[in-house]
C-alpha cells in the first residue's frame, strides 16, 4: 500500500516486472502477485473497492499460489520422467496458470476515469474497431451480449488475430486464456465474467456490470498492445 502511494507509476512498472517473477530452487521460475497500478477504490462506482480488493488479494493470489505449487510438482515430475503425473498436472496448470495470465491482463485493461479509463481508443486501434465492428458502440454491444451469454464462468475478449490481421470478439470458459481459441490470437481487452468479478455489487445482474465496466476500460493499453503486435 505505502509503496504504491509513494513511488511514481514508472518506477513501479519497473519493479512490477521483476517482482512478479521469483527465481526458486534449481532456477524454477515462480510468480508473485503483481501490484495494481491504481488503488482498490479508484474504479468506483463502476467496480467497487471491495470487489477489487478481494478479486486481487484473494482470487488472483490463489491462482498464483496454486500455479506455483503445480509448477513445482511439474518440475519434479519432469525431472523424474514421471509422464503420468506430468499429464495429470495439466488441468491444474491450465486453471491456475490461466487465471494468473488472464487477471494480469485484466488489471491493465482497467484504469480510473481520471487516468483515461473509458476514453475511446484513437489511432490505429480506433480505426480498426470502426472497420471491423462499424463503431466502438457496435463493439461494446457485441462484447456485452457475448459476455452476458457465457454459461457459468469465463471471459469475453477483444483480440487481434495476427494471422488474418483482423480484430475478433470471442469468449473462453473458466480460466482458459484467449490463445486456447486460436494460436494466433492476441488478447487486447478481456472482461472477467466470473461471478466473483461483480457479484457483491451487481448480484445476479451481469448485464448491468457489463454496461458499467466500459467506463473504466483502459483503451490506451489495448492500443499499445495492438500497435506493437501489428508491426
Amino acid at each position, binding site marked *: 500500500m505505502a509503496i504504491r502511494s509513494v513511488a511514481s507509476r514508472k518506477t513501479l512498472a519497473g519493479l512490477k516486472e521483476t517482482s512478479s517473477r521469483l527465481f526458486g530452487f534449481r532456477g524454477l521460475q515462480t510468480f508473485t502477485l503483481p501490484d495494481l497500478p491504481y488503488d482498490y477504490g479508484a474504479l468506483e462506482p463502476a467496480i467497487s473497492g471491495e470487489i477489487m480488493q*478481494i478479486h486481487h488479494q484473494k482470487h488472483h493470489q*490463489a491462482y498464483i499460489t496454486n500455479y506455483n505449487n503445480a509448477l513445482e510438482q511439474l518440475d519434479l515430475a519432469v525431472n523424474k520422467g514421471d509422464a503420468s503425473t506430468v499429464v495429470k498436472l495439466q488441468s491444474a496448470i491450465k486453471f491456475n496458470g490461466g487465471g494468473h495470465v488472464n487477471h494480469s491482463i485484466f488489471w491493465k485493461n482497467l484504469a480510473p476515469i481520471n487516468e483515461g479509463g473509458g476514453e475511446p481508443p484513437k489511432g490505429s486501434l480506433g480505426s480498426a474497431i470502426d472497420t471491423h465492428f462499424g463503431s466502438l458502440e457496435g463493439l461494446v454491444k457485441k462484447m456485452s451480449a457475448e459476455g452476458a451469454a457465457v454459461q*457459468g*464462468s469465463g471471459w469475453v475478449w477483444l483480440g487481434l488475430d495476427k494471422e488474418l490481421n483482423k480484430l475478433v470478439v470471442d469468449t473462453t470458459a473458466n480460466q482458459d486464456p484467449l490463445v486456447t481459441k486460436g494460436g494466433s490470437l492476441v488478447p487486447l481487452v478481456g472482461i472477467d465474467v466470473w461471478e466473483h468479478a461483480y457479484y457483491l455489487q451487481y448480484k445476479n445482474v451481469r448485464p448491468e456490470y457489463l454496461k458499467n465496466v466500459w467506463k473504466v476500460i483502459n483503451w490506451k493499453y489495448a492500443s499499445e498492445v495492438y500497435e506493437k503486435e501489428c508491426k
Partner: protein
Amino acid sequence: MAASAAVTANYVLKPPPFALDALEPHMSRQTLEFHWGKHHRAYVDNLKKQVLGTELEGKTLDHIIHNTYNNGDLLPAFNNAAQAWNHEFFWESMKPGGGGKPSGELLALLERDFTSYEKFYEEFNAAAATQFGAGWAWLAYANDKLKVVKTPNAVNPLVLGSFPLLTIDVWEHAYYLDFQNRRPDYIKTFMNNLVSWEAVSARLEAAKAASG
C-alpha cells in the same frame, strides 16, 4: 384444460421447504432472496420461453435434460432445464438445524462405500472444493453403490446414469454474499449445519426401488 395446466405445471418455481431466513446464520436470507428469488426464478422463466413452440414444450424437466444433454455437446435448453432441476433439488437437500452425521441405513452404506463417514465427508468436501469454475458436487447412487461426483456448470448425475441423493451448489453465486472467495468455509458450513439427511435417505429409498 388439464393438458395446458400440466404444461406450465412442469416449470414451476417451487419455494424452498423452509422460510428464506430459516437457514440463518449459515446461509443468509439475502443469499436465498437472490439465489432462489432471482437465479432459480430466471432459469424457470427462461426455460418456459425457450421451449415454447418447440417439441420440448410440455415435456418434463427430466425429459428435457436427457434429450438435450447430447453426450456433453449441450443443446440450448439443457442449461435452463438442468439448472431448474438442480436448484429445486438443492433447496430440498437442506433444512434448518441440519448437518452432522446421518444414521441408520444411510450411515451404514456410507461406511460400506467410503470406509467411514469421515472419509465420505473428506471426499465430498474435496469434490466441492476442487470443481473448477461453476458446478455442483453430489452424493449419487448407481449399481448399488454410493459415490461422490462433481459436475461442471449445469451438468447433473442424471445424465451420467446415476441417482442424485445430495447436492451442494458451488457456483460462486451460491456463497459469495456470505463467504466471498472462501468456498471451503461454505462447504464445511453446509455439511455441518444444513444437510437434510432425511431428504437424502428418502431419495436413497426411491433410488433403490427404481433400480429394482
